[in-house]
């Protein structure tokens, strides 16, 4: 059996200018610290391989939510049971990324997000003169002439 290989263009280059992000902060939340450690390894290694600058990898303090309930279905007020939910965090900060690279990195990270973990991504894009939103263009007359 002979295999016929088809070549097709995976990468298309568009005329639109790439967005630039000053910082990209990824905050991951989970209940298990070991899983978070492994995920941090994945995220930092992926950033290194793709050539991104890791500004900071930190561990914000955990959040414990406790509740006290009655142990029994009926009466026995003096006997209670306590539960707690621990949420651990990990913060990965990447500085100076382009839009395309950020998209690639974030998609890779998010597709490999394990079950039971949540993520919050904070993006700070630069506002361009050549941006396509009307509101952005109107802002530039307010800035000092030497800045832009």
């Amino acid at each position, binding site marked *: *059996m002979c295999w016929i290989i088809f070549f097709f263009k995976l990468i298309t280059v568009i005329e639109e200018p790439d967005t630039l992000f000053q910082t990209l902060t990824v905050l991951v939340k989970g209940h298990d610290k070991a*899983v978070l450690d492994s995920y941090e390894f*994945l995220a930092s290694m992926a950033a290194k391989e793709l050539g991104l600058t890791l500004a900071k990898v930190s561990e914000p303090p955990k959040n414990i939510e406790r509740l006290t309930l009655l142990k029994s279905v009926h009466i026995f007020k003096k006997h209670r049971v306590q539960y707690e939910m621990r949420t651990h965090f990990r913060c990965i900060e990447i500085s100076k990324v*382009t839009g395309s690279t950020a998209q690639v990195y974030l998609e890779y990270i998010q597709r490999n997000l394990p079950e039971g973990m949540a993520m919050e991504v904070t993006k700070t894009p630069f506002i361009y003169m050549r941006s396509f939103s*009307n509101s952005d263009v109107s802002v530039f007359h*307010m*800035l000092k002439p030497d*800045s832009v």
Partner: protein
Amino acid sequence: MIWRSVDLRRTALRTLLQLQLNMAASTFCPVLLPLSRINCKLNGIYTLILLNKTAAYSTGLSVKKTGAKTGLPQRGGKELRRQIKQVLQPRTERMAVDQDWTAVYPTAASFKADAVPLPVRMGYPVKKGVPPSKKGNLELLKIPNFLHLTPNAIKKQCEALKPFCTEWPAALDSDEKCEKHFPIQVQKKDYVFAGPSLRHPDARIVTLTVKLSSLNLDDHARKKMIKLSGERYNKDTDTLTITADSCPLKQQNHDYAMYMLTVLYHESWKIEAWEKEKTRADMEEYVWEDSPSQKNILETLLRIRPLSEQQEEGEVREELLGREEVQEYKDSVTKLKNEGETEGNMQQYKEAVKKLLSI
């Protein structure tokens, strides 16, 4: 009853393995799924179950072709028994040390004790015992594993992703340059989580930060802008922060924040009629001109050297104000009033007074 069913299973397994091995030998394709549709003359349910189990992967064993196509296994076939034994053993026994692990776990999959050659133990140990082994361990199944994301796998995947990345422009290498060219910063948040809905209510919030020093403002406009922004202005970092969260969509909030900034800017440049009535109490910082301190110092200096008849009061005032010591005194008093009392400020005031009164 149980004994009989075991016997049936064993014979069924033998037959089907023979079939499978024959199929593998005769054809080149390792896909064995079509096998499930073969009509076997043995017990229906058992055969199907066994087929699904054995058809998961190709054994890759070299098998001697037997003459009969679907014949029953030969009684006492040592070779066949050995092959069956090998297939029934866990896959870890046949793994090479330098194998390609990305082929074993190419994607996220649950932990398979027979496919992971590590002596992992997990769980709470029994009394005077050790944590349970990996065989049939539910704890290992429950926890998400990263076996598909070994450093090799990550490297390979990143290599494949590299062509889609773009480089950061070399002209913007420092933070100062970025701030100089892009003084307005807009912060947006996105959320990835599991829940009944994809939408997160906080995803619509947009925060706009800008330094007032980068805006084209004169003295009056700057003070008015600070007064208009109120709590949103941070004096220490000279930043104005506008948070827009009243609209349901992110783009709408972004537009609204930009609009707020534009409005603030234009309003701060306008001078209303009632702004002329600004009193000393409304002033943001202490101004020495026309203050009681100025009057006091002039009076004191005039008393030290009384006015002679040729000189006029206005001229004398100008001359006195122009003197260096008076200027120093003015600076020290302004500093004290605006910045508060510190060691340095008090010293400066002391020196200025001493100089002025020539003590």
